């Protein structure tokens, strides 16, 4: 800026500052301590889910000691791995005040297309299969993102439509057939089953991916801008954040991640028919919300969402271990969702109350 040399905007004026009155000083100070409380609670919100998880495991193990067997741990982790991976993409979409309901269908289509390659191309390398799954997801994500971001249709509606469209495509390709486990090469099936001390390798990889995703959302501009868009879309426009591009990218990432999750799903379950991944979208959204991501955007983390997925997966297995009919599983998920949202709301209201009284008491 040419005028900066002549405009000493940087010069500090400590004398004037010292002269400035601050009649509201006491008010500012008073509002600070409840604010710390708010920050603390929001941080606690993510740790809280870990506490709930540990409590749940402890209680279940107390009743049924065999619950913490290696086989169970492996099952819980593998199950959670797919949901947690989907939750990473979903988090990116949800923090920007959108929603992706197509992830289950994308997973299903990708699972079939990728695993079917083994029958069609003899000796196809596994990385190529993963790329194929990624590609299927990417195409779906690009479509979702383009219609939402550029045609400005609410993403909830767009992905509700693609949930059916992609499932329809899946069914028309597969027909009544299916990919059977025996047609898959052993080293592909191993991806979903090999483990060390009960911890599957694929879970370790996904943990690293989620950690990277969480770090990206927290420490890089495009990540922070997703939060900004979800927090206040109008203000985001005023400060010049490329909203359409960011939302498009979030959908694209969610699609691509669902595509990769589809390949992992195929290697884990082996048998892929046209119902693969049905209903996953709602479980994923539940995991995201239980994990502390605000349903209307702006706050929450991918790590929290992953813990949400782990909690849901643990509950499902625990119910089984406790001899509760698995039909009760969805009811428990729903209950947990209501509890999480009620708790969030209750804490928010209680905090508002505390802040109200403190602010008033400190007023001069």
């Amino acid at each position, binding site marked *: 800026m040419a005028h900066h040399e002549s405009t000493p905007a940087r010069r500090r004026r400590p004398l004037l500052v010292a002269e400035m009155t601050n009649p509201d000083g006491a008010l500012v100070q008073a509002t600070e301590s409840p604010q710390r409380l708010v920050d603390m609670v929001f941080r606690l919100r993510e740790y809280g889910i870990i506490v709930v998880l540990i409590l749940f495991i402890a209680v279940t193990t107390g009743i049924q000691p065999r619950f913490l067997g290696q086989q169970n741990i492996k099952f819980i982790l593998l199950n959670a791995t797919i949901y947690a991976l989907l939750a990473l993409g979903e988090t990116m979409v949800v923090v920007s005040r959108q929603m992706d309901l197509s992830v289950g269908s994308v997973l299903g289509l990708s699972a079939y297309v990728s695993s079917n390659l083994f029958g069609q191309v003899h000796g196809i390398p596994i990385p190529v299969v993963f790329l194929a799954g990624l590609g299927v997801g990417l195409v779906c994500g690009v479509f979702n993102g383009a219609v939402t971001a550029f045609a400005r249709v609410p993403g909830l509606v767009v992905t509700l439509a693609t949930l059916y469209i992609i499932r329809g495509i899946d069914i028309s390709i597969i027909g009544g057939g299916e990919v059977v486990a025996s047609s898959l090469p052993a080293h592909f099936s191993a991806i979903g089953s090999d483990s060390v001390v009960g911890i599957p390798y694929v879970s370790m990889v996904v943990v690293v991916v989620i950690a990277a995703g969480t770090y990206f959302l927290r420490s890089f501009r495009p990540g*922070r801008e997703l939060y900004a868009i979800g927090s206040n879309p109008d203000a985001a426009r005023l400060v010049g954040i490329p909203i359409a591009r960011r939302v498009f990218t979030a959908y694209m990432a969610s699609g691509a991640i669902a595509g990769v999750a589809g390949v992992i799903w195929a290697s884990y379950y082996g048998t892929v028919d046209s119902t693969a991944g049905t209903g996953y979208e709602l479980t994923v959204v539940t995991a995201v919300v239980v994990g502390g991501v605000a349903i209307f955007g702006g706050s929450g983390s991918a790590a929290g969402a992953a813990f949400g997925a782990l909690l849901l997966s643990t509950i499902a297995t625990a119910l089984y271990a406790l001899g509760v009919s698995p039909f009760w599983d969805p009811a428990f998920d729903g209950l947990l969702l209501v509890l999480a949202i009620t708790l969030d709301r209750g804490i928010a209201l209680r905090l508002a109350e505390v802040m109200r009284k403190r602010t008033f008491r400190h007023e001069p």
Partner: protein
Amino acid sequence: MEREVGATGTSDPEVAEPGERKRSPGEDQTALVLEHATKSFGAVHALVDGDITLQWGETHGLVGENGAGKSTLVKILAGVHQPESGRLFVNGREVTLDGPGASRAAGIAVIHQEASVFPDLSVAENVFIGREPLRSGRRIDFKTMHEEIAVIVDRLGVRLDSRRIAKGLSVADQQIMEIAKALSLNASIIVMDEPTSSLSAHEVNRLFEMIELLRCDGAAVLFISHRLQEVFEICQRVTVMRDGRHVFTRPLAGLVADDLVQAMVGREVVDRAAGGGQQMGDVVLDVEHLSREGVFTDVSFTVRAGEIVVLAGLVGSGRSEVARAIFGIDQRDAGSVSINGRPLRAGSPTDAIAAGVGYVPEDRRQQGLVMAMAIDRNIALASYDHLKRKGLIWGALERSFASDWASRLRLKYGRLSGNASTLSGGNQQKLVLAKWLGRNPSLLIVDEPTRGIDVATKAEVHRLLEALAAEQGVAVLMISSELPEVLRMGNRTLVMREGRLVAEFSHSEVSEERIVGAATGQTEPADNLAKTDAMGHGTP
């Protein structure tokens, strides 16, 4: 005016009057020139001839009624809107602002009228959003962000924790955040679109001190306000706009408020003074020992039929909260409220409405109207029990009811079936009033009924409320932060301080000094408070 720029300001040799800044000879004093800018939205010509010239080291007022094109002009300077024609020069060079980024790069910082705060992000992120300092690997450098803000906040002489999330910040603190943003941008041209409309007097003073600080540092400040006293207080020159056109730009010295009002309106505003001697009827509203823990304590007063009672007080004094508790939106912890002798149930707006209470809230966009609903339905919203025949609501009945009230209140609208959001601010306020008047209320509570409304509509709203009281015997409880309005409207004025009623003045006793004195707890009001509107609104 009489304001001093801090005690050291006048003795500091580097503090400049506009046009006196130390510059090399021949250097241009002009910071920014916008010439003949035009902008249309569909058939609406928002800006027909937008002209503004800012100089370094001046605070320049921009005034005009709602719809005069001020906000469009601001959005052009912000890079949000692109003008269809016209030229813009910044520091002598012609520029094209094709986005908010280009505007920032040109050294312009805009503090927008509507809150541009990201409630879930930290203060630091709010300040640096979209241009965060980066460290290796394009990662955001949070440490530098916090350090830079600490420097700026120190320079402004305020306290603001850069790590807290913005949720829960007061409007004043949000503005400090916006100013910090302008400073961190190193912006030398700062545009403030109605920055004072939600601030209390103390906060306005603090804001003005910051504006003076920026101006004395050589910045050019464009200050937009509906409050003319503020323009006279803080600005050196003023530009008046009307109907999207530039009317004049003049130094404020030698001008009086009426000159601006006439230029804004294009005619004289008839604003007759309220009489004090209306015939009062029976007690309509009787509030006894009303308390809500931490908000207000032991509030008792009455309002009679045909009487206008004004609640005055500083920010946080509990005025709006008392109104909300009377109407039943907030619970009360103790005390009673009765209408025409019938006690109201606590916490039940339904009961209050049934008893004949109408409530026009402070925030008409969020609370007073359903913005995405048709104008006629908004008017009919509170009157459906009168519009029912055989248990159904008839569209024709609804429409004729709505058009009747729209014409009685002289509402300016395109189509009655258009959304409430298509109306201007003043007409939106008339719409809220129409909704309640349609129910023939015996008590009308109006909270800041004229905030953000242009001068002519404001006078119309005043006349309307007076007519309601005088001719229909409606009891009116009004909350206002504008002293002229308080003085003009109140048959009686009640003053609140820290949640308690501290004073009551009749129409003949009331004066600005007395209200300010009671509201601040000082017997001798401070000079700077008495001059300008000293009231804050009651946002909690």
